C-alpha cells in the first residue's frame, strides 16, 4: 500500500463531504489565523512602544519635581520652592566633576497654548528649554534651523514647531519657516519645523513648539519652577551611572536624608524605573529602565494573546475529532468492505489519519494566509508584525493536531472487525 494511494483515498473521503470538510477546516483556519495575527499584534505593539521610547532617547533621564502630574501646576508658581526644581538645580547637574556621565542638561518649562497664523489656529504643547533639548529628546529639525544659545541668552521670541502645528497653520513645512506666528497672543518667529515622530496613544507627539527657555518664561509661564529637567547621559551604557550621579547631587541640594534615599531604591525595584515615593521632592524617570519594563510587559501581553488564540485552535482540533468520529461511524460499512477486500489495519488507520491531517494542514495553510492578510491592516492602532516563528509553530501544531485529534477516530476505524462492520446498516 503506497503512501500516495492512502493520500488519494483520504482526498476522496474528504471531497465526498465538501461542506463538512470546509467547516472543519474553518475551525483550524480560525485557530491558526488567530494565533498568527494576535501574536503579530502583540509583537507589533511591543515594537511600537519600543520605537517610541527609543524616539525619546534611551540615554535620557527626566527629572520631575514631587509626584507625577504635580509639576504641571508649577508653572503658576504656587508650589513651594523647596519641593520644586529650579534652574539652579539644573546648573548643578551640569557639573562635569560631580556628574561625569552627564552629557547635557536641559531645563524645561512647558505649557499648553494656542498658536495662530492668519486665522488658522491649533493647540500645542509649548516647551521652553535650551538647544541641547533637541538632541536629548531626539527631535531633529527637518526644515529651517535650531534656535541657539544666543537666542536663549537674549530671550529672543523664536520657535521651532512640530509637524502637526506646521500642517495646521501653514499646510506645508517649508511655508512655515521665517513666518511669525502668535502663541497666546505673543509673536514668535518660526525658525524651523521638526521631523515628524511616531505617535502613541491620544497625545500627538508632533503638536509641539520648542522655544528658548527664557522667552517662554517671559511671555507664557512666568518665573516659577521648572516643569522638568531633561538629562542626557554620555551613552546608553552610562545612563544608570548618570542616574545615580544626578540623584546624589539632587539629594544633597534638596536636603534628602539617606533613609528616604533607601526607600527610593525599594520603590525602583518595583519595576517602574522612577522614584514613586511621594515623600520625595523629585523623581527621575530612566528611559532605559522604562524600555525594559515595557518590553517585558508587552511580552506578557503577547503571550496572553497567543494563549487565547491557542484555545480557539484547541477547539478547532476537537472539531476534527468530532467530525472524524461521525465520518468513521458513517463509513463503517465502507471500512468493512475495504477490510474484506484485503485492506490491512495500517491502511485503514493511515487513510483516516491522513484525512484528519489533511483537514488540519489545509486549515493551517489557509490560517497562515488569513493571518498574513489580517496583518496588512492596522488593528486597534497597532500595525501587526508577523513573528516568523509563529508560522513555523502554526504549521507544526496543525500537523500535530491532525495526528493527535485524528488518532482516536482513526484507531476506532482500524480496529473494527470486518464482519461487524459489513453487517452495519
Amino acid at each position, binding site marked *: 500500500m503506497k503512501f500516495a494511494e492512502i493520500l488519494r483515498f483520504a482526498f*476522496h473521503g474528504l471531497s*465526498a463531504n465538501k461542506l463538512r470538510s470546509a467547516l472543519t477546516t474553518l475551525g483550524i483556519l480560525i485557530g491558526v489565523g488567530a494565533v498568527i495575527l494576535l501574536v503579530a499584534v502583540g509583537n507589533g505593539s511591543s515594537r511600537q512602544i519600543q520605537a517610541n521610547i527609543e524616539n525619546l532617547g534611551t540615554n535620557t533621564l527626566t527629572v520631575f519635581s514631587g509626584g507625577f502630574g504635580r509639576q504641571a501646576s508649577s508653572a503658576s508658581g504656587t508650589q513651594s520652592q523647596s519641593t520644586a526644581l529650579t534652574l539652579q538645580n539644573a546648573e548643578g547637574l551640569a557639573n562635569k566633576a560631580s556628574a561625569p556621565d552627564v552629557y547635557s542638561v536641559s531645563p524645561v518649562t512647558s505649557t499648553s497654548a494656542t498658536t495662530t497664523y492668519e486665522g488658522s489656529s491649533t493647540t500645542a504643547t509649548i516647551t521652553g528649554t535650551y538647544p541641547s533639548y533637541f538632541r536629548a529628546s531626539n527631535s531633529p529639525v527637518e526644515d529651517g534651523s535650531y534656535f541657539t544659545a544666543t537666542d536663549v541668552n537674549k530671550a529672543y521670541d523664536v520657535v521651532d514647531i512640530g509637524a502637526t502645528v506646521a500642517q495646521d497653520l501653514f499646510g506645508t513645512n517649508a511655508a512655515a519657516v521665517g513666518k511669525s506666528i502668535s502663541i497666546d497672543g505673543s509673536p514668535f518667529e518660526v525658525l524651523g519645523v521638526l521631523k515628524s515622530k511616531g505617535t502613541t496613544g491620544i497625545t500627538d507627539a508632533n503638536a509641539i513648539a520648542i522655544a528658548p527657555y527664557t522667552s517662554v518664561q517671559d511671555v507664557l509661564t512666568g518665573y516659577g519652577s521648572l516643569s522638568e529637567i531633561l538629562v542626557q547621559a554620555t551613552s546608553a551604557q552610562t545612563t544608570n551611572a548618570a542616574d545615580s550621579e544626578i540623584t546624589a547631587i539632587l539629594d544633597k541640594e534638596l536636603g534628602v536624608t539617606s533613609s528616604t534615599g533607601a526607600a527610593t531604591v525599594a520603590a525602583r525595584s518595583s519595576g517602574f524605573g522612577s522614584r514613586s515615593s511621594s515623600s520625595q521632592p523629585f523623581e527621575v524617570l530612566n528611559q532605559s529602565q522604562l524600555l525594559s519594563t515595557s518590553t517585558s510587559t508587552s511580552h506578557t501581553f503577547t503571550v496572553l494573546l497567543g494563549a487565547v488564540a491557542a484555545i480557539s485552535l484547541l477547539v478547532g482540533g476537537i472539531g476534527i475529532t468530532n467530525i472524524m468520529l461521525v465520518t468513521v461511524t458513517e463509513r463503517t460499512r465502507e471500512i*468493512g*468492505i475495504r477490510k474484506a*477486500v484485503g*485492506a*490491512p489495519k495500517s491502511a485503514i488507520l493511515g487513510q483516516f489519519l491522513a484525512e484528519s491531517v489533511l483537514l488540519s494542514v489545509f486549515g493551517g495553510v489557509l490560517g497562515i494566509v488569513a493571518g498574513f492578510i489580517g496583518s496588512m491592516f492596522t488593528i486597534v492602532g497597532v500595525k501587526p508584525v508577523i513573528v516568523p516563528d509563529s508560522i513555523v509553530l502554526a504549521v507544526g501544531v496543525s500537523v500535530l493536531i491532525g495526528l493527535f485529534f485524528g488518532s482516536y477516530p482513526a484507531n476506532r476505524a482500524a480496529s473494527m472487525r470486518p464482519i461487524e462492520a*459489513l453487517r452495519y446498516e
Partner: protein
Amino acid sequence: MPTRPAEGPVDRPVISVRELHKVYGTSDVAVHALRGVDLEVQRGDYVAVLGASGSGKTTLMNIIGCLDVPTSGRYLLDGIDVSFLDEAQLALVRRRKIGFVFQSFNLIPRMTGLANVELPLAYAGMRGDQRRRRAMAALSLVGLIDWSSFMPNQVSGGQQQRLAIARALVTSPTLILADEPTGNLDTAASADVLAVLDRLSAEGRTIIMITHEHDIAAHAKRQIHMVDGRVTEDNRVVDLAAPPPLLASSLAAS
C-alpha cells in the same frame, strides 16, 4: 490477465475443513453456530451451500472467507492453516486468496465502478497502469467494460452485482465466495449474475455460493445442505471436470 487460477498440485484441495466448531457467547448464553463441520472443496469446483437461516451457513462462509475465526477445528485454505492467524495475516490471506460477492453488493459509493474493481489491487500495492489494465479485463469478463466510469448508484442492481464479481475476480483469487449473490435481485438480473458465475466456473474458477433457494443452487456442480450447524447432505450433481449443469440454458437465457 490469467483467466485460470494458477496451477497447483491437483490433489491439494482449495478448502479442507475438519471438525469445525463456532460458539458465540459464553456458558449459559452460548450459541453453537457450527457443530463440527467437515468439508473439502477441490480446485475448479462450483459448490452451493444450502440451508435455512440459522443453519450456520453464514458463519461457515465468514470462517471460510477469513472474516472470522473458528472456536475449534482445523481449516486449511489452499494448504495454509488459517485457523489461528492474527488479523494482519487474515487481511493478507483475504487479499490474495479470496474474492467476495455479497448479497448487498457492498460497493463503495462515490467511487466509480473501475475504482471499486481496482480497490483490492490498490491494497496489494500494484502500479496504477497495471491495475487499470487488470480491472478493465475483469470488467470485460462480466460485460461491463462500457460502464467503468459510472458510480455504483448510477447502474442497475444486476450491474452492481456484476461489478462486485469483477472486483472479486480481479486478483485471480483461489476462491470466489458468493453469499446469496442474487438475494437482492429480480429474476432477470439474477439470471445475468448466475450466467457470469457459470461462465467463470466453466473457465475453471473455484466458486462457493451460499443460498437458500434450490433453483439458484441448481447452477452448482455440487450441493451441500446444512441444518443446525451440521452438513446433512452432500450431493454431487455433475463431475468436477464437467461444465456447470445450467451453463447452456443460462447462455440461452442471456
